[in-house]
């Protein structure tokens, strides 16, 4: 490791245990000096990050946990499986377990007509499962980052254009994030929009405009499907006001250009 690499490593990971870095620390006076200087700088950072921690924080947290636990036991509600609590999406999926059984029963009972119905049901199930899984991947992360560092309208427009979508400029300030994302019917767009009630996540799903205005829950959020002319959007928000406001915004601001056949 030459001196420049060593200096760079001091700026990236000064406590690294990489053998080449450890060996370089005592290579000569220049390396030793640089290392000592970096350690002083790190000590300053560590000191600067000191914050006053509330007295008895651990005890307060424990008390809250045990109180919540006792409350849920009193309410005779079974504690959900630990893995699903760490992963709220699993809870959502469990809630849909009855659907395949119901669909299978219909197929056995009333033949071909019912099988069409079953396929429709499976389709409905997969859209909710898709949304839950998609949200779990990066939904919270995207929404927070887009609120903190909104994307420029031009960049959002460029992403929308990949699916032949257009954004009404009058509403561009309300669109704060866009990226392409996979959907059950192909490449879609993951958007974050700001409403007067708070942020909402919008997933544009191409080539499916036959969703009913179905609502369900995703990780404690409300989700609603809204059919457009050529595709649909799924809106995820914390309250019904956010959902309604977003649906209104999408109808006014998002235009599907003719000829899209995604």
């Amino acid at each position: 490791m030459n001196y420049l690499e060593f200096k760079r490593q001091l700026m990236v990971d000064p406590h690294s245990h990489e053998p080449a870095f450890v060996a370089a620390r005592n290579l000569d006076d220049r390396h030793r000096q640089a290392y000592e200087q970096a350690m002083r700088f790190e000590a300053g950072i560590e000191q600067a990050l000191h914050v006053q921690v509330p007295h008895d924080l651990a005890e307060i947290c424990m008390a809250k946990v045990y109180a919540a636990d006792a409350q849920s036991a009193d309410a005779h509600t079974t504690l959900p499986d630990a893995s699903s609590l760490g992963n709220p999406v699993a809870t959502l999926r469990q809630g849909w377990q009855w659907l395949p059984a119901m669909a299978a029963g219909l197929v056995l009972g009333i033949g071909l007509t019912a099988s069409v119905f079953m396929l429709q049901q499976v389709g409905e199930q997969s859209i909710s499962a898709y949304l839950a899984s998609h949200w779990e991947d990066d939904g919270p992360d995207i929404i927070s980052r887009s609120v903190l560092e909104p994307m420029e309208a031009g960049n959002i427009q460029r992403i929308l254009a990949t699916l032949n979508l257009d954004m009404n400029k009058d509403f561009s300030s309300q669109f704060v994030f866009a990226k392409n994302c996979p959907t059950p019917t192909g490449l879609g767009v993951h958007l974050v929009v700001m409403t007067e009630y708070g942020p909402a996540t919008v997933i544009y799903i191409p080539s499916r405009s036959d969703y009913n205005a179905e609502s369900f829950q995703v990780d404690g959020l409300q989700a609603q499907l809204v059919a457009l002319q050529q595709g649909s959007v799924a809106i995820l928000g914390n309250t019904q006001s956010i959902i309604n406001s977003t649906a209104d915004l999408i109808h006014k601001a998002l235009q599907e250009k003719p000829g899209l056949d995604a």
Partner: protein
Amino acid sequence: MTVMMNKQARFEAIAREYSTDMYRYAVWISGDHALAKDVVQEAFLRAWRALDKLKDEKAIKGWLFTIVRREYLRTFERKVPNFVDVDDVVLTELTQMEPEADSEVAILRDAIAALPVKYREPLMLQVIGGFSCNEIAEKLGISRSAVMTQLFRAREKLKHSLVDDLLKDDNVHELS
């Protein structure tokens, strides 16, 4: 009963060992003491409920920090943003912390608070959490090389703030 007592004992040991670092991390990513306290409490509630599934003791700290981060991100779903620059909030909140005699530390504190989130967060995970670049990359969902670049830039910005302050002092001396 014994199983529950064992779980409690394990949980209490974890809470005592990690709550301080979790709180520090939460304060520095949220810039708000009250919010940080809520986030840590919620994180412990989730941790308690999922504790039986955690078998690898070495993974506890990383697991807890991931829960804290996730709980913090969830708060964005629950509130209407006030459109105040988060860095201003952080700066105000954090500069109200313990008065610092050492001016260099005070400058560093302001500079850390003013760092853009994308530089501040990896630095917090490294310094407070003690995580490696690979672990940080995994937590933030970005590449290792991006983490290394962000850590480099974070330190570079902090160093510049120290130098800038030094130059400012020199100018003041020259003028007087």
